[in-house]
């Protein structure tokens, strides 16, 4: 007479049990194994989700590079901005606040005005040659838009400018990787 296996309800060894019963064992050690095995399967699913997110970012960045640049837009006339002054404008869309600063007679610079730390509006300090973010005291170089102090780690987006016919035109936005 063959011996009954106490780990299974019908007394046959676990290996001979139907598949569904092997997935719901009554033996504690077997149950711990199945739980961890299933957790490992789920982890691989999460890993696939992370990889999919990464591929999605890759595709988005390819499409972003291929997208046509924004059309030029007139920001102000040269006489509107005295030396040392700044004006706010929006470019390339209404949701992109920017800042135009006149550093010298023929020297204009423009940046996206959202701080690259947590998106507070930056303020120009032309005489000190910097832009200041009042939220956490972040500072950017006025000449280049690079972060020089405080929490920000990335430079401000640079709006390229052109002066023609007495007007100042925004002609594009340079991404961090293009600068």
């Amino acid at each position, binding site marked *: 007479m063959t011996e009954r296996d106490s780990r299974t309800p019908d007394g046959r060894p676990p290996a001979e049990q139907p598949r569904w019963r092997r997935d719901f064992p009554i033996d504690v050690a077997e149950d711990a194994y199945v739980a*961890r095995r299933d957790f490992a399967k789920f982890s691989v699913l999460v890993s696939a989700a*992370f990889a999919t997110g*990464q591929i999605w970012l890759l595709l*988005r960045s390819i499409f972003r*590079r291929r997208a046509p640049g924004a059309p030029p837009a007139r920001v102000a006339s040269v006489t509107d901005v005295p030396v040392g002054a700044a004006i706010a404008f929006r470019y390339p869309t209404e949701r992109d606040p920017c800042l135009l600063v006149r550093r010298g007679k023929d020297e204009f610079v423009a940046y996206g005005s959202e701080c690259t730390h947590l998106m507070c509006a930056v303020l120009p300090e032309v005489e000190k040659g910097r832009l200041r973010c009042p939220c956490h005291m972040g500072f950017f170089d006025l000449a280049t838009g690079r972060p020089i102090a405080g929490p920000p780690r990335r430079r401000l987006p640079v709006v390229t400018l052109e002066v023609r016919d007495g007007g100042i035109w925004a002609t594009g936005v340079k*991404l961090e*990787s*293009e600068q």
Partner: protein
Amino acid sequence: MTDDGSPAGGAPRRRPLATGEKSTIVYGILGVLLVLLVAQLWLLTATTNAWLGGDDSVVLPAAVASLACLGLNVGLLLYLFRLE
């Protein structure tokens, strides 16, 4: 028949692993899986941060690294299936 139950002259049949042995293996695999998962999570957050800031130079290498982690994870899972 030989001592291990395999037919004489044939390849030795492998003894099925006991539950305790399988649990040890699954613990080891889980440890590696979780480390790779944390690496992937870090990659995704760091890449998203850089990409939103306009820097997409890291997107391709990060995607390759994440896919390599996924490949390793799938390999470990297939090994786990083979244990059954």
